């Protein structure tokens, strides 16, 4: 044994170590690969030895070879061996090698669990450290699950060195094992205040990384981070925190206000450029979040942009040039952030951005290009593109030039060609781009040509002419083999010329161009298109020639085809060959007919009749699965798995089985089959991809009139299309300028005329400086929207990456932990543990708490159910679509309500109190300025008065006996609410506002019968309106759930077109959130579940969850919809602001006078008061108004004095004592939440100041 060891160490003397290996490789530059392969052989020998030192040395060398690109995974087991060595030196080598080459697919990783656990608990801190470092690189879900608890323990290790590593690695554990986030989070939060700055920094690092993906879950940490920001001196930590705040401010504008001051202080005090820059960046984010909607802040944005300009423009002579370049880059980067929300502020610096395009630094040029994308408008598009075209000519590197090319196309085509006013110009730009040499983006240009020609019907004539020229000059594009990429445009050119051949000036010439022998050198797929479209052209030519008396011309054309096509029949490309031989035979037959003097043109044209429609790229995915189709169901019974073919070959041929299955299927019964057939037909009719057999089915495309009906633009052909010495597009630029000038002049003239006539017109025309909207397109252009299947699913899920590990980390961290969520711990083997090796708690948990896995499943099930529900509702809708009798309408409303309700019930599990507590803490922190004192005296003062009134209360009967419905509007509303009531049967207490009003009349002493009738009132107020749609809304609290309000919105179609695909979206705030179906992100809108025919209105309800109700709030939102008229459809949107008043959180609740008295006596209420002057309305009107608009009920009324009561959805009591004397109304009020009370009073005041 001893001898063996001695021998081993002698051998070792001759082993190469890492340095020898490196030197050897450097000395064998000629035959490096060979040398390395001998080295690998040596290493393999070394790994076979027992001596761990030898093995470690070998593994060390392998790590080096891995860097050179050699796969060393074959040594994975040896690496594990070295990792488990007791010596630190070897262990470190092992872990290093493992961290370089282990990954989730490495199977030996599962052998390491216990070794790593042992190392983690080693008394030597460096053993632990090395294990943590290694683990951070190769942690797998299994390792994460098994070791999470051990690592969590290490977070409280005595040594800060271990603590910081343990904290940091937790992020990796969370990613791999999301269930660990909630149990570990409290400790992680604790580490934010660790005495050691390194540990603190690590914790900040982890939380910032987590919060970056799901910021809203971390808003409650804002006060803590704020404290850190003002106390920490570690720049790295500060940078991280400030970046995090930048991500949080958009969610909570109030946070921004708090941040401005400390950030400004930092900007002034720090000397670190990196910190300074991040501060500026976050200030920008704050300003953006504050200024959205508020014009007065745009001045500060302007200032920011100005400062950034200085950063970009100036170069500090004292600095390294590269530092100046860095600042320039970052300045542009920051500008692009502003651009997203305040394009106007940045647009004025167009000159600077264009200048940056000349920079020698490609990074800066690319940044500038990016900015340009967002800066274009109708006005400057042509100019900007012209500049870019100049750069395209100048650019030397092909990569940058290609980048320019794609940017030009991106800029022009963005948001559905929104900024293009002249499509002729765009086509000529595309044509000019084809002259680029060696670009890779031929297909991009081609697809743009196709898209424009198909979707902009008006431009087809022009496009076809241009494409014909391209085809004619095809030799220019194909002449050079280097230009291969660009020949793709010929594909587009040939197709456009063929498909829209009726627009061709001289189809015969184009046909000839397409049949040139040179074409055979093009790639196969292009040739195929050539052949096919030659046939289309042939049809057109025939038609024009047959209409003339001379028949020889037609025959000549056929002869031309017959002469040229054989070339393609011989093509090596199958597609070309097949099409060519098909068409050749066809033409031969036509020729025969022609010789018999038969007119064939009509029939030939019929071959290519019909129009192709653009289809949205995602259309296929969005086709909903029809009812009754189960994609998972077997079409034929699967052969039973137990019997394989080898074992029982006879069984396959046995007659029994197939018979059995067949008979089973026939049992499905004829009715079912007929139903399915019907469903399939329905589906096919809606499916744009389904090619129908009968020509009549073309009628399905209702909005595509035949070719004859295409509005052909009158192109003034007297304008020469080519001007020598001047590129085509430039000319358009000039023309466009002239045109705009002319238009402007005309407009001015009109304006003057109008003024002279002084006729008030409905439409207001802006006579100020030329604005975006003033620029009218050169032609009437109608951009066809891409088709979608009729009842496409409103899912945006396809945009999310299902593999994003961060999605799983979107977890509510404020909820208290449940028992089932404890991290699996390693215990001594007990019976329980044996049952559940993973420690997942399957079958172990006694509490019966839902376990993670099952919860997930449930979620999925719910989702599926929900989808189904949505689908069925939608299906019903489509069936009903065109009927509008009131009953139907009501049923629709009904459905809407159920839909929303369904969402509500399943997406809101009752929140534990701590959530709202946490949120209100934050609210408190954010609004901590308002804390008035000295209320007590006021309370005492009013206390004496109120009870006396209440004492006199006799009115007990709160239920109104007679309901005089006075106004039709109210009646309608009542019906709706009745419906709502049916749905919420438990809502006994919910008194409807109109009833409250009735009460007020009745509850009073009822003396005068001569009281004037109440004026009509409606709680629905205007939300927004434009030419297409008008929205009015009302907000009602939900008594059952203290955190919900229901917003009812009536959509009214004001236009003469059909409105469809309405999508309602709101920018959530921290406090109020739109309840979206599970799985939707906060940016997803909700589809309004109906369509609106002209003049029709319909109501939809949306549920919002609110946390704090003491303050009113405004939420910004957008309604997007498609306006569909007979011949076109456009996308429109309407912005609105939802105003959640504090009143809307109040619910009319009756109160007995003795209870009322007790409440006031309790002394827990804070008080406030309000005086209204100049109120002329009768007192009962006043009360009715308060009842109706502010959801109060009258407890008691004596002469000109009344006590009123209401309750908030979160159970706050609000009491009013209203007194009136000589046009002055004084309201004394009490409530357990002062802020709420003051806001309600403010709102009451507003109600009366308006009238």
């Amino acid at each position, binding site marked *: 044994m001893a001898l063996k060891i001695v021998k081993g*160490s002698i051998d070792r*003397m001759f082993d190469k*170590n*890492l*340095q*020898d290996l*490196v*030197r050897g490789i450097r000395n064998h530059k000629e035959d490096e690969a060979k040398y390395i392969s001998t080295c690998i052989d040596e290493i393999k020998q070394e790994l076979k030895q027992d001596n761990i030192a030898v093995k*470690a040395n070998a593994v*060390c060398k392998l*790590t*080096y070879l*891995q*860097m*050179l*690109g050699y796969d060393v995974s074959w040594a994975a087991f040896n690496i594990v061996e070295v990792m488990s060595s007791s*010596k*630190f*030196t070897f262990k*470190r080598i092992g872990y*290093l090698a493992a961290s*370089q080459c282990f*990954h*989730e697919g490495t199977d030996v990783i599962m052998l390491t669990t216990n070794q790593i656990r042992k190392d983690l608990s080693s008394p*030597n801190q460096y053993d632990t450290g090395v294990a*943590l470092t290694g683990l*951070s*690189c190769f942690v797998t879900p299994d390792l994460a699950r098994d070791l999470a608890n051990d690592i969590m323990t290490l977070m409280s290790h005595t040594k800060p060195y271990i603590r910081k*590593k343990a904290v*940091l*690695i937790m992020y*990796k554990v969370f990613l791999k094992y999301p269930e660990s986030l909630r149990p570990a989070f409290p400790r992680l939060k604790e580490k934010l205040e660790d005495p050691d700055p*390194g540990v603190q*920094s*690590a914790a900040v690092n*982890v939380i910032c990384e987590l919060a*970056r993906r799901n910021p809203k879950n971390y808003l409650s940490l804002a006060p803590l981070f704020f404290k850190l920001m003002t106390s920490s*001196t*570690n*720049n*790295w930590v500060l*940078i991280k925190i400030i*970046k995090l705040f930048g991500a949080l401010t958009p969610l909570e504008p109030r946070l921004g206000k708090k941040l401005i001051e400390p950030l400004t202080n930092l900007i002034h005090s720090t000397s*670190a*450029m*990196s*910190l300074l*820059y*991040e501060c500026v960046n976050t200030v920008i984010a704050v300003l953006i979040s504050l200024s959205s909607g508020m014009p007065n802040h745009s001045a500060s944005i302007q200032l920011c942009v100005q400062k950034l300009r200085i950063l970009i423009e100036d170069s500090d002579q*004292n600095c*390294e*040039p*590269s*530092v100046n*370049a*860095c600042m*320039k*880059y*970052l300045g542009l980067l920051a500008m692009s952030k502003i651009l997203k929300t305040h394009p106007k502020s940045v647009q004025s610096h167009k000159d600077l951005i264009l200048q940056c395009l000349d920079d*020698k630094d490609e990074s800066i040029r690319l940044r500038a290009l990016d900015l340009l994308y967002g800066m274009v408008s109708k006005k400057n598009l042509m100019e900007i593109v012209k500049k870019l075209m100049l750069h395209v000519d100048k650019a030397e590197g092909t990569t940058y030039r290609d980048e320019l090319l794609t940017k030009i196309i991106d800029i022009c085509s963005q948001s559905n060609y929104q900024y293009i006013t002249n499509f002729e110009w765009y086509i000529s730009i595309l044509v000019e781009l084809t002259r680029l040499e060696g670009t890779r983006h031929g297909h991009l240009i081609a697809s743009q040509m196709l898209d424009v020609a198909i979707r902009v019907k008006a431009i087809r004539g022009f496009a076809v002419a241009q494409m014909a020229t391209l085809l004619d000059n095809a030799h220019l594009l194909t002449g050079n083999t280097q230009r291969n990429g660009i020949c793709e445009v010929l594909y587009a050119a040939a197709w456009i010329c063929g498909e829209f051949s009726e627009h061709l000036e001289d189809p015969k010439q184009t046909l000839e161009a397409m049949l040139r022998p040179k074409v055979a050198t093009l790639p196969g797929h292009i040739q195929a298109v050539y052949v096919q479209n030659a046939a289309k052209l042939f049809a057109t030519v025939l038609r024009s020639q047959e209409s003339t008396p001379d028949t020889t011309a037609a025959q000549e054309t056929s002869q031309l085809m017959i002469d040229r096509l054989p070339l393609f029949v011989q093509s090596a490309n199958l597609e070309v060959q097949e099409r060519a031989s098909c068409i050749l035979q066809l033409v031969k037959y036509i020729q025969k007919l022609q010789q018999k003097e038969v007119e064939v043109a009509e029939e030939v044209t019929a071959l290519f009749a019909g129009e192709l429609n653009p289809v949205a790229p995602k259309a296929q995915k969005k086709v909903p699965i029809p009812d009754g189709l189960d994609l998972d169901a077997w079409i034929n019974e699967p052969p039973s798995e137990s019997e394989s073919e080898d074992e029982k070959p006879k069984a396959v041929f046995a007659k029994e089985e197939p018979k059995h299955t067949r008979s089973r299927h026939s049992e499905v019964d004829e009715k079912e089959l007929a139903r399915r057939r019907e469903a399939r037909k329905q589906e096919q009719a809606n499916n744009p991809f389904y090619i129908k057999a009968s020509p009549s089915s073309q009628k399905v495309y209702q909005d595509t009139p035949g070719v004859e009906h295409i509005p052909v633009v009158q192109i003034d052909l007297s304008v020469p299309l080519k001007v020598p010495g001047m590129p085509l597009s430039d000319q358009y630029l000039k023309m466009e300028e002239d045109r705009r000038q002319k238009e402007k002049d005309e407009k001015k003239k009109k304006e003057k005329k109008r003024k002279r006539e002084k006729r008030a017109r409905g439409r207001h025309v802006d006579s100020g400086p030329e604005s975006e909207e003033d620029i009218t397109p050169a032609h009437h252009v109608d951009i066809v929207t891409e088709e979608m299947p009729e009842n496409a699913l409103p899912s945006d899920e396809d945009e999310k990456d299902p593999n994003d590990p961060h999605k799983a980390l979107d977890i509510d961290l404020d909820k208290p932990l449940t028992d089932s969520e404890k991290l699996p711990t390693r215990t001594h083997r007990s019976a329980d543990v044996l049952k559940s090796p993973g420690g997942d708690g399957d079958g172990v948990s006694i509490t019966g708490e839902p376990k993670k896995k099952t919860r997930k499943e449930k979620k999925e099930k719910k989702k599926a159910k929900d989808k189904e529900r949505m689908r069925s509702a939608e299906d019903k809708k489509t069936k009903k679509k065109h009927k509008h009798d009131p009953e139907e309408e009501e049923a629709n409303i009904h459905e809407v309500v159920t839909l929303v309700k369904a969402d509500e019930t399943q997406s809101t599990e009752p929140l534990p109190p701590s959530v709202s507590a946490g949120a209100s803490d934050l609210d408190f922190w954010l609004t901590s300025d308002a804390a008035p004192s000295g209320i007590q005296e006021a309370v005492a003062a009013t206390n004496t008065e109120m009870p006396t009134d209440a004492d006199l209360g006799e009115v007990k009967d709160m239920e109104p006996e007679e309901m005089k419905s006075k106004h039709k509007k109210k009646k309608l509303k009542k019906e709706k609410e009745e419906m709502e009531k049916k749905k919420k049967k438990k809502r006994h207490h919910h008194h409807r506002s109109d009833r409250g009003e009735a009460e007020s009349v009745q509850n009073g002493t009822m003396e005068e019968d001569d009281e004037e009738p109440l004026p009509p009132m409606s709680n629905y107020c205007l939300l927004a309106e434009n030419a297409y749609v008008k929205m009015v809304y009302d907000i009602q609290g939900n008594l059952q759930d203290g955190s919900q309000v229901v917003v009812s919105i009536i959509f009214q179609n004001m236009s003469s077109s059909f409105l469809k695909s309405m999508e309602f979206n709101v920018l959530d705030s921290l406090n109020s959130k739109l309840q979206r179906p599970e799985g939707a992100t906060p940016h997803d809108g909700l589809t309004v579940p109906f369509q609106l025919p002209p003049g029709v209105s319909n109501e939809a309800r949306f549920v919002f969850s609110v946390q704090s109700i003491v303050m009113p709030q405004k939420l910004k939102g957008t309604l997007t919809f498609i306006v569909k008229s007979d011949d076109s459809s456009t996308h429109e949107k309407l912005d609105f602001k939802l105003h959640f008043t504090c009143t809307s959180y109040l619910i009319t609740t009756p109160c007995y006078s003795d209870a009322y008295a007790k409440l006031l006596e309790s002394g827990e209420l804070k008080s406030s008061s309000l005086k209204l002057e100049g109120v002329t309305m009768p007192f009962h009107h006043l009360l009715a108004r308060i009842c109706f608009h502010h959801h109060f009920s009258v407890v008691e009324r004596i002469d000109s004095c009344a006590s009123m009561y209401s309750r908030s959805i979160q159970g706050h009591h609000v009491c009013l004592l209203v007194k009136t004397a000589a046009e002055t109304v004084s309201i004394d009020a009490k409530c357990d939440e002062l802020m709420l009370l003051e806001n309600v009073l403010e709102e009451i005041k507003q109600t009366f100041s308006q009238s």
Partner: protein
Amino acid sequence: MIKAILIFNNHGKPRLIRFYQYFAEDMQQQIIRETFHLVSKRDDNVCNFLEGGSLIGGSDYKLIYRHYATLYFVFCVDSSESELGILDLIQVFVETLDKCFENVCELDLIFHMDKVHYILQEVVMGGMVLETNMNEIVAQVEMQNRMEKSEGGLSAAPARAVSAVKNMNLPEIPRNINIGDINIKVPSLSPF
């Protein structure tokens, strides 16, 4: 998050590669080649940020690099990292190397790749920045080296290789990476 740290020389020869996301070996080599191609054609006085190596990540990722004498230090990071912060971090890393190797040069990196890794492990862990205080980093590295020494080290004759290296006749490579003259005025994060 840092996705990868690459160190290669003016000819694109890798001196240290550290990926924090798994890529197969041939992919790693391709990434190195692409990155080298992107970085090497840039002037020394243009900015230190580069967008989008197409292989490593796409649009959310940036290459942030510094060029010291014969070596490029390239960090591939996502948008959660501050650009200038990472530049400073590279500086800290190189200064640490300089302290640990006493006037570091490319040769040190070539022959002691493992040691460079160990130093890096004290700066960045699993793609996240672990420590930015140079003194703390150096202290931890030295403690571990001392431990290794007390165990007798990896090879029985550690001096042998070192002397061999010193005596080798190598083409003139600037001996000193010379952090002094880089002296970039991206103010160093002094309180690290």
